[in-house]
């Protein structure tokens, strides 16, 4: 009798549990899980969805080409370059924004005047529309823009540099844009982490005669290392899927020197209508992200102090 009662209770709990999870679960299945598997499947096909006239004969429009897309990817110089570019963006913007973010958070965390307005200044770019900010940067880095004007005024360059056109320069405006827009985020996360460092540690160090710099390297850095680890992962992943900041600069231009992985996926899918190939590129992106998340978790044990 008691057992039957328990069973009935369990059934009730099951119904309640799934009823509560249902809206999330349905969205998950339709908009995450199903598209995910479809990406995997389509990556082995040559397929242009816009050519499909009737869904009943969908099979007719899909040609299975096995691993051909993946073979193409490694000979597709533009896509290989986009992977290289994305790594350049990651290797430049992630360290710079994390170091600068920590320094600014550290300074702002101590005693300063006008703390809130100053914090706001660093924060605005992070909460603002990336297209709006990208448009501003694209204009600032124009040949007759403010950056060239300033550099020439300082006498650092003799004639205007073609930041947005010259392949060797074209990544620089994007790198600055990304650092500018991500620093506020890094700063806020570090400010929260710094508040959790016990004051007693600094007091003890002061009594022992440690200098401000020693306190920063010996106490602050180790104590915020879990946060640093978190930020490295989050920022790396954010850069691997960088699109908006790049798209603003690549729109209306055909150079490949500043394009990114997602920008290339986007143009394969919506300019070339190569939906099979774009899916294969998406799979490569996913593998890169999973790989780096795994490495990060592996490396965590070595340098993070809890």
């Amino acid at each position, binding site marked *: 009798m008691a057992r039957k009662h328990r069973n009935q209770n369990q059934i009730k*709990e*099951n119904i*309640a*549990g*799934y009823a*509560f*999870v249902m809206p*999330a*679960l349905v*969205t*998950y299945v339709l*908009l*995450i899980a199903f*598209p*995910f598997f479809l*990406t995997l499947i389509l990556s082995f096909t040559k397929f242009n969805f816009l050519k499909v006239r009737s*869904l009943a004969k969908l099979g007719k429009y899909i040609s299975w080409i096995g691993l051909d897309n993946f073979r193409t990817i490694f000979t597709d110089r533009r896509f290989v370059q986009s992977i290289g570019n994305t790594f350049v963006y990651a290797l430049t913007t992630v360290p710079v924004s994390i170091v600068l973010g920590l320094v*600014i958070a550290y300074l*702002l965390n101590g*005693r*300063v*005047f*006008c703390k*809130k307005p*100053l914090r706001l*200044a*660093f*924060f*605005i770019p992070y*909460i*603002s*529309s*990336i*297209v*709006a*900010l990208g*448009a*501003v940067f*694209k*204009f600032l880095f124009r040949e007759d823009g403010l950056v060239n004007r300033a550099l020439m005024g300082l006498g650092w360059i003799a004639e205007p540099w073609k930041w947005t056109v010259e392949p060797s320069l074209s990544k620089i405006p994007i790198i600055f844009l990304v650092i*500018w827009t991500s*620093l506020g985020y890094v700063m*806020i*996360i570090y*400010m*929260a982490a710094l508040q959790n460092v016990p004051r007693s540690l600094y007091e003890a160090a002061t009594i022992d005669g440690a200098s401000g710099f020693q306190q920063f390297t010996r106490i602050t850095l180790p104590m915020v290392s879990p*946060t640093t680890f*978190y930020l490295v992962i989050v920022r790396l*992943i954010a850069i691997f899927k960088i*699109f*908006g900041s790049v*798209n*603003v600069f690549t729109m*209306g231009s055909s150079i490949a020197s500043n394009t990114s992985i*997602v920008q290339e*996926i*986007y143009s394969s*899918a919506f300019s070339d209508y190569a939906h099979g190939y774009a899916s294969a590129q*998406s799979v490569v992106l*996913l593998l890169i992200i999973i790989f780096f998340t795994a490495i990060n978790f592996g490396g965590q044990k070595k340098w993070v102090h809890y």
Partner: protein
Amino acid sequence: MKKREFSITLVKTLIIAVFALAFLLPLIWMVTSSLKNTNEVFAGNWQWLPREWKWGNYAAVWTDPDVSMFKAYLNTAFITVIGTVAQLIISSMAAYAFAKVRFQGKQVVFVLFLATMMMPTEVTIVPRFILFKTVGLYNNLWAIILPHFFNATAIFLLRQFYIGLPDDLMEAAKIDGAGHLRIFGQILMPLTKASLISLMVLSFISCWNEYMSPLIFLIKKPLYTISQVIRWYMLDDLQRYDLNMAAATSAIVPVVILFIFCQRYFVEGIATSGVKG
């Protein structure tokens, strides 16, 4: 000693202020350019302030008969409000179930949800395009709204919060004959208000500034979001830099004003999402 402390604080403030000013310069350039004549923006004899203040630039951007910022604001606000409210409700419900309901298969579903935190939505743009086009949501604001219904991070954060709420609260209500719906809606959910406000801020930022999905799904001009209006001015043959910057300023200013009023929630919202759970 006191004097020395004061000067250290002052020097620190000055160092940060220099950084802060450098950060604001592009935005100051944006605002002043939005009030200039087109040919003044990149003029040979360039200066910071407009020679003639052209407030009409904003009127032009907001009332353009082809692509009006006003319509874009309505579209973006619609996406943001529905996307955010739905995300908070749906995530709260799921979080409650994961934390407080003992249903079978809970762990499996939860792990499946968590796994998606590793998969960026950018990976699935092709299937989503196929799906939305098939069900007739192409050129429809709902194509942008629906994906916001599921957010693994929000579910995860709220679940942590619900786990922290004592079971005694529920037990007492259960004895009084309350079902899960009552316990969730009337007793526990109101207690998560602080977390909900933080998540609301995060969702607001991501909906308001969303760029890629509208670019793919909203092709008709009356459906443009704010991001697309700025893009439209960038691609326009007339190259109206002044109007372009007026559009950019229009996109940023409301967010900044909102931030100034809700600074605490913005900061907490972003910080909690980054705190190790």
